[in-house]
């Protein structure tokens, strides 16, 4: 095993409400949905119609540009709704479970004899391809491309993040099988990022991969940061990334022949009464988890973590890639002279509030912006939380100026939203940096293409 790569920059936001390492029994909900919005840049084309009977693994819709990329139903049942938003954009394709757990059979594979084309074909057929994301742009990987490398981060350092050591236990074989499949897709160029504090042998003793060990505060667990320290992405290169639970699902697909959407989700946050891990299914309605679980009515339910997650309604659906639900208080109230108070109870990466004197206590943060939008004024604060060889402020300014050449030169290809989410958190000027970055991606996709 290689030496530990120690990251110094970053910030651990000390939130209340970590999930207890117990499996809570939550009944499975009736409704499930695949949300095209979870996949950046995707334009969906419906295949199934409302009223169609589907099995787990039956196609619901496909990518309009790459028709071979299919999105399948996570459960067996009936397509009950296609919810659309402005300009008839598809927001959710909702499937009502019949409780029978019938799955399409994609056939078992012998991993030792698997060819790359067969692997790609199977991932595409089974709807498992969208698990694989491409950098730059954080979009679904293009199946026609062979990437330079595939990176998997086996730990999450985001606030209240689930413990993947815990999640992977009992699924070690499927995880290894998934890595073997990735190794077929990109021979000898699969990289595993392991936490220095991690304990699971499934990660630290994984086979057929290159293992790098990291330590440090968030965003050390972000795969983009790990790539930057192992082998940074050059302009024009493509790199793929896959999450831990997605690797497990891919492994299971090839070992058992069914595309299982089972997923372990951590229920976290200061406002959750019952915190713990729960076994559910990708795209499940949050209703059974959220029901009677919020301490107050003014609670925000987030699919994902507080930095990159998306707000969902109490009966909304968990995001495709999310392994975490966070419940935090809304902050839509006024605070009298809040900027002038000593602020012992306020969390800040700066030392302008006296809370830095109060040690490592945990905070119950709400969703208030704590100030108004301004131009960049304070310098150097973004750099402190981005452990990458990038000048974030200059990158964001290039994006704001829509200067594509500068964006490329300054490393837009190396970052995705989660890598720079902390920059947005600490920004004194309250700028929406993740949105800015996404606008940059969209501009580049439009002008330069994938």
């Amino acid at each position: 095993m290689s030496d530990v790569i120690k990251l110094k920059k970053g910030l651990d936001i000390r939130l209340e409400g970590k999930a207890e390492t117990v499996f809570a029994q939550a009944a499975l909900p009736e409704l499930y949905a695949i949300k095209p919005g979870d996949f950046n840049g995707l334009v969906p084309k419906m295949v199934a119609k409302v009223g169609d009977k589907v099995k787990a693994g039956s196609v619901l819709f496909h990518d309009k540009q790459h028709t071979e990329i299919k999105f399948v139903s996570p459960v067996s049942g009936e397509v009950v709704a296609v919810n659309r938003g402005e300009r008839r954009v598809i927001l959710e394709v909702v499937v009502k479970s019949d409780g029978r757990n019938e799955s399409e059979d994609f056939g078992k594979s012998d991993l030792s004899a698997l060819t790359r084309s067969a692997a790609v074909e199977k991932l595409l057929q089974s709807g498992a391809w969208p698990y694989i994301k491409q950098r730059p742009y954080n979009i679904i990987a293009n199946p026609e491309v062979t990437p330079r490398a595939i990176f998997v981060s086996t730990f999450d350092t985001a606030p209240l993040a689930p413990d993947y050591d815990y999640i992977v236990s009992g699924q070690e074989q499927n995880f290894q099988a998934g890595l073997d499949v990735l190794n077929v897709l990109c021979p000898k160029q699969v990289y595993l990022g392991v936490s220095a504090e991690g304990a699971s042998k499934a990660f630290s003793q994984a086979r057929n991969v290159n293992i790098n060990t990291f330590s440090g505060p968030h965003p050390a667990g972000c795969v983009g940061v790990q790539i930057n320290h192992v082998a940074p992405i050059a302009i024009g290169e493509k790199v793929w990334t896959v999450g831990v639970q997605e690797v497990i699902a891919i492994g299971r697909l090839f070992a058992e022949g069914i595309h299982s959407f089972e997923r372990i989700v951590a229920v976290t946050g200061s406002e959750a009464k019952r915190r713990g891990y729960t076994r559910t299914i990708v795209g499940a309605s949050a209703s059974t988890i959220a029901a009677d679980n919020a301490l107050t009515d003014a609670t925000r339910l987030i699919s994902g973590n507080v930095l990159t997650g998306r707000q969902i309604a109490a009966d909304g659906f968990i995001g495709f890639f999310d392994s975490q639900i966070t419940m935090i208080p809304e902050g839509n109230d006024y605070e009298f002279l809040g900027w002038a108070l000593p602020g012992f109870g306020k969390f800040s990466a700066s030392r302008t509030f006296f809370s830095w004197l109060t040690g490592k206590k945990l905070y119950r943060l709400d969703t208030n912006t704590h100030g108004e939008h301004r131009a960049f004024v304070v310098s150097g604060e973004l750099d402190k939380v981005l452990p990458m060889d990038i000048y974030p402020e200059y990158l964001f300014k290039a994006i704001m100026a829509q200067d594509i050449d500068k964006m490329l030169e300054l490393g837009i290809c190396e970052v995705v939203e989660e890598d720079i989410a902390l920059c947005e958190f600490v920004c004194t000027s309250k700028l929406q940096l993740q949105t800015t970055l996404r606008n940059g991606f969209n501009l580049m996709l439009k002008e330069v293409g994938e």
Partner: protein
Amino acid sequence: MKALRNFINNVKPQFEKGGKFEKFRSTFGAFETFLFVPDTTNQNGVHVRDAVDLKRTMSVVILALIPSLLFGMYNVGYQHFHMLGQTDVTFVETFLFGFLKVLPIVIVSYVVGLGIEFITAQIRGHEVNEGFLVSGMIIPLVMPADAPLWMVAVSTAFAVIFGKEVFGGTGMNIWNPALVARAFFFFAYPSKISGDQVWIADKIDSYSGATPLALANAGDTTTYCICDCVSGFIPGSIGETSVIAIAIGAFVLLLTGVASWKTMLSVFVGGALMGLLFNQFGSEANHMAQLPWYHHLAIGGFCFGAVFMATDPVTSARTELGKYIYGFLIGAMAIIIRVLNPGYPEGMMLSILLLNTFAPLIDYCIVQANISKRKNRVKIKS
């Protein structure tokens, strides 16, 4: 507080679009957000945010300026009564004299600056920025106690309009607005901000009144010893005299992390090294060149500039490496100007303005190095 909040909620619709007082929307917003941190929540992107905002950052700087302001007020009185030879004046009387001298300058600076700030915010349809809260405090502190108020007003107006608003407001300006105000004052009305006549309030003609800096330029370092310069009981601009008061401010700024220690330290290192260099190799006839390096750092506006003006994040270099270079050059350049410029003994103001101008170039070179590194990556791989 609830009653106040309810009152604001009641009158708020009149200030919004279509309301009776729509023209005062920015002004209303500025006062509202001053009283209450707004109720806005995060919608896209992160769900929680750091408690810090620009109001907090700026108020820390103002807090750091308070010791210099209070000492400055006292010193204005002290210098006045010292000149008159009155030794039986009480502490309160002394302070009150200075207070009444300085307060009008502070008020003029804030009223003029904030007035322009509010008007431009309204024209642009923006919120009022907090930047001037600091500039408005620094401007009086770099003025002589007897500065005519109308000149302060004109200088402030010039600084806010041409030093800041024409570039787009706080965050977009190239030069430190407070220094632009001082530079404008200096070049427009030199007789009121340089020489020996202006540094003591209500000065009588027979009294010398020269600053230690001017005296040092003439080779006199005995009238005021270095301990006077550190404690600050010397003639000079209102806030610049006391190294101790400035040091308290520096402590606050560094402790809270609001100012960059890299910039601050490098200014002193640059000044000290350049001072040493002149001590070693400077002309014997040049009194400034022979002034010990540590003496250079203690007199004039060096400390005040290093702590409060060089560290202005907007006009300083914005890359971390750049801050070292930027700071070092400010310190070095200030001493060079002091030593080699025959006309005017002080160099800090011009030195900071000069480096403000070059800060983007310093950053450009550093960012360009990062860009080249990224480009070379491609060459190796392909």
